[in-house]
Each structure stands twice: as structure tokens, then as C-alpha cells.
């Protein structure tokens, strides 16, 4: 297996895009390629994620992006894994590059939802659950995570302020991230006064609907030779799955796919959680950040809430979590999220995360979940 590097990573500002998904994807892709020091013609394969492209009446977007980059002959395919789509695409790029099939691969994630009304967008999100056995019984996407939160709260009682502290921390980070949808801090009072969506989750526990695009260039170490950026060495690229339906999960106190993906990733990297400097984790809802910290093996079960309240996960804390603002405040354009986590790690490694720097940037981990954990990706990066 060859060593694979991330040598370029770019994102637009999440929120509401005036242009179409295809235009935004092509733009961030060109930006990431230019930053990497490569030319579009160096790309051997393009992996695209665009779960809800059909809402723009556009499928098969890969060839359109490659055409727009001037490389129409380059093969492409679309990778779908719900909210973990572009980390799944990154995994495919890693497999191609590390396996020697391609010297350089492009990963592009893009989503546009702002042309849909909230109800329609909510329905699309719920499609990643099991329609017959969950959605048809009244579940929504927030409702499913709220149900898990309820089970967790029963096992480990916590005040509303615990989840509130996750939201406040992630908003504070997003306020310093030019890619973020919500570039403003919130107070505990604002959090507590926000309306209940699905108990115990309030509006400020939930990630927003977002448009956005992010792209990553992966290349073989031997192909790059003289990198113009500080590359992220991909030390592990692991994926896992679990039964989707909540009714078939004996344990509701976390996401089993995170646990198995993390075990694989740490084994692949030959590393332990204590060697990781900072994390980008999948906080589609505040409770999901607690699950991530425990399921990834950073904190014992039932203790992540206390760590959040005590500031352990703050940007200047012992274990900075989501310095980008996370899905919660940076935004969650479904298919762009996994790639955008890598953009944040790339910017931190390259001194581009101005005003939101974390203290140590030798290693980092990205954790991306599909829906309620039917899919999960864990990537571990280090410096050369």
C-alpha cells in the first residue's frame, strides 16, 4: 500500500448558495486542485457526493464537474452514504491512491437544499431512516436522535445546560470560521429559550439545513514529490456499518458503527486516542457529539457531558472538538460535510485557521456518520 496524502482542500461558505450545486462543486474543486499545486489533468479519478442532486433535477453530476474542470475524459462516480457520503468518497479515493490504481484523486461533496421549503427538506432528510419501520411510525431525523438522547439521559441524568454547552462551544468556534453558516456566538439563555423540536432537543441542539460544497485532493506521496502545502498523511481510512433500525439495536447509548469504525481506524494507524491532538466529529445534534467522544474511545461512557461543561473540548482545551463549529454551527450540507471536516483539519495544519487555531496540530481525527449510524467513517491524519 502506498502512502496517501491530502494536498489540497477547499470549501465555500455554507448556508445559502446562489449558484447550482454543480457550479459550486466545480468551483471548490478547482480551488482545491490549484491549492495542491497539481493541474486538473493530473487527476485520475473524481469521486462525487450529492445525495439530493435529484431535487435540482440533476443526477450523474461527476462528468459535469470534470467537464467544467477541462478534464471530461477522467472517470467519475457518485458515492452515496447519507450524511457520511463525502467521507465515503474520501475512503474510495484513499483506496484508489493507496492501492496504486490512481496517482491523484479528487473528492467533491456538494448539496443544495435552499430551493426547498422546510417541510420538503425535512422529508428528504428522513429518507435516510427506514421509511417503513421508522418514518412511517412518526419518526423524523431530529426525533430519532432525540429518542437516543432520551435513553442516554435516563442512564446518565444531565441538566439541559450540558447539551447547551456543546451548542455554545460550537457556535463560538463557527463565529471565527469564514466557511461557517452561523458566524455568531449564542448565550445559554438563547439556547434554553429556543423552542423544543423533539424533546429533549431544542432548536439550538439541531444542525441547520445548509447549502455548501467542499473538495479534497488526495495524491500518492511518490507522485507529489515537492508538496506546496503541508500535507495531511492519511494514517487511517476506516468505515463501518450497523443495523439502521433503532428497534433492532440492543444498546441505545451511542452509535455502534462509530465504535467499530474507530477500532479499525486506530488499529490501521497503530495509534491510540491519547495521541490525537484535535477532532472534527459528527454533531448533527448536540447529543451526537457526546456519543462521538465516547464511542470513538476518547472518554468513558457517561462522562462526555461533564467534559463539555468543563471546557475540555473548547478550542484551547485539552482535547479541542469541532474547531470549525461542527455541523451544528458551521452547517450541514449533507454530502459536503465529510469533505469539509478535512478542509478544517487541512487549514489547521497549514496555519490557515486564523483566529480559531488549536494548540497542537500534529495529528487529527475526522468522524462522519450516515443518518443515525447505519454508516460511519473515521479518518486519522498526521503530519509527514
Amino acid at each position, binding site marked *: 500500500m502506498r502512502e496517501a496524502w491530502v494536498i489540497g482542500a477547499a470549501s465555500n461558505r455554507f448556508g445559502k448558495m446562489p449558484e447550482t450545486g454543480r457550479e459550486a462543486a466545480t468551483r471548490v474543486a478547482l480551488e482545491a486542485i490549484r491549492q495542491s499545486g497539481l493541474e486538473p489533468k493530473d487527476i485520475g479519478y473524481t469521486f462525487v457526493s450529492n445525495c439530493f442532486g435529484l431535487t435540482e433535477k440533476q443526477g450523474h453530476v461527476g462528468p459535469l464537474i470534470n467537464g467544467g474542470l477541462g478534464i471530461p475524459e477522467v472517470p467519475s462516480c457518485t458515492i452515496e452514504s447519507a450524511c457520511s457520503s463525502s467521507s465515503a468518497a474520501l475512503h474510495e479515493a484513499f483506496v484508489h491512491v493507496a492501492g496504486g490504481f490512481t496517482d491523484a484523486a479528487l473528492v467533491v461533496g456538494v448539496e443544495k437544499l435552499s430551493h426547498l421549503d422546510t*417541510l420538503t427538506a*425535512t*422529508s428528504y432528510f*428522513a429518507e435516510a431512516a*427506514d421509511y*417503513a*419501520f*421508522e*418514518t*412511517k*411510525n*412518526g*419518526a*423524523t431525523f*431530529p*426525533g*430519532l436522535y*432525540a*429518542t*437516543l*438522547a*432520551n*435513553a442516554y439521559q*435516563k442512564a446518565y441524568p444531565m441538566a439541559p445546560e450540558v447539551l447547551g454547552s456543546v451548542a455554545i462551544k460550537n457556535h463560538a468556534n463557527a463565529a471565527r470560521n469564514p466557511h461557517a453558516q452561523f458566524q455568531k456566538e449564542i448565550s445559554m439563555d438563547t439556547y434554553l429559550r429556543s*423552542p*423544543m*423540536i*423533539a*424533546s*429533549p*432537543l431544542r432548536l439550538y441542539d439541531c444542525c441547520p439545513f445548509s447549502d455548501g460544497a467542499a473538495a479534497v485532493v488526495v495524491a500518492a506521496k511518490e507522485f507529489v514529490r515537492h508538496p506546496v502545502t503541508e500535507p495531511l498523511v492519511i494514517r487511517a481510512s476506516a468505515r463501518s456499518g450497523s*443495523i439502521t*433500525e*433503532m*428497534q*433492532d439495536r440492543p444498546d*441505545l447509548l451511542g452509535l455502534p458503527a462509530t465504535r467499530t469504525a474507530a477500532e479499525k481506524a486506530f488499529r490501521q494507524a497503530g495509534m491510540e486516542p491519547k495521541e490525537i491532538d484535535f477532532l472534527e466529529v459528527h454533531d448533527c445534534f448536540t447529543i451526537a457529539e457526546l456519543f462521538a467522544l465516547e464511542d470513538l474511545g476518547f472518554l468513558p461512557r457517561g462522562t462526555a457531558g461533564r467534559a463539555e461543561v468543563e471546557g475540555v473540548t473548547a478550542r484551547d482545551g485539552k482535547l479541542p472538538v469541532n474547531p470549525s463549529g461542527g455541523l451544528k454551527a458551521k452547517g450541514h450540507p449533507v454530502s459536503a460535510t465529510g469533505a469539509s471536516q478535512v478542509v478544517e483539519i487541512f487549514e489547521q495544519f497549514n496555519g490557515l485557521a486564523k483566529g480559531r487555531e488549536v494548540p497542537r496540530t500534529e495529528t487529527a481525527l475526522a468522524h462522519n456518520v450516515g443518518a443515525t449510524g447505519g454508516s460511519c467513517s473515521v479518518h486519522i491524519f498526521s503530519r509527514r
Partner: protein
Amino acid sequence: MSATDPLPSAPHTVQEFVHGYEEEHRLRGFRCPNCGLTTATWALACPHCGKADLEEATLSDRGAVVAFTVLSVPGDEFLNDAPYAYVVVELDGGGRITGWMPSVKSESDLTIGTRVRFSPSYKPGVQFVKDEGDAPAR
């Protein structure tokens, strides 16, 4: 599932599960004779042990709430029903199923452990009400 196993004949379809809830007023499921798992989800092979030998079962219509949420913002087929509870129920005799409870309007109306009963109506999905009857003998 191994290569030498005959392909399982699906005892029923996803649509038949839904038909079971809504028309026959029963909770259909599977039991795995190999590992003993009871599931209310359609499958060809057991999600626990992988053996493709699932037997049809009618699950109990009574059980206890394992986890729940009260939704203020509903799913699009439940627009006029919010708030309502979405529940995970551990059924007596085995198997878990998710459903919804239109009578639960606030978080304080329900606790984990509350006894519930499957109560089909003209509404879609698996609908539960609080079970005011006696708990089953254990």
C-alpha cells in the same frame, strides 16, 4: 447465510408488515430458531446471527417504553398530530418495535418503563396507547 443454504423464501414482504399493522391489526415479526432473536423488522437473514432461517411470528401487542421523544415538529405524514410521542417499545415475549402515541402531548406525560398497548386506528403506522390494564405475569 452460507453458499450451500437454499435461498430463503421470504415469508412476507415489507408491505405485508405494514398491512399487518393497519389492516389485520397485528404486529408481524420474525423469530430466529438459531439464536432466538425476535425482530419486528423485515429481513431475509437474522441481523444477529446471519442465519437465513427466520420464522414468521405475531408479536405481543403489549410492552414497555424503552425510549421516547415528544415531537413538536412532526413528520410530513403527521402534520395535524403534533405534538405526539415517538416510542421504542420492548414487547412482552420479545422483540422491539417503534411506534407513535398521539395521546402524549408533553414530555411529562410519559416515562421510560410506561406500559403501552398497540392500538391500531385509521392513522398510519404503529400506534400505541398507555396500557391501563394489569401488567402480565412474569
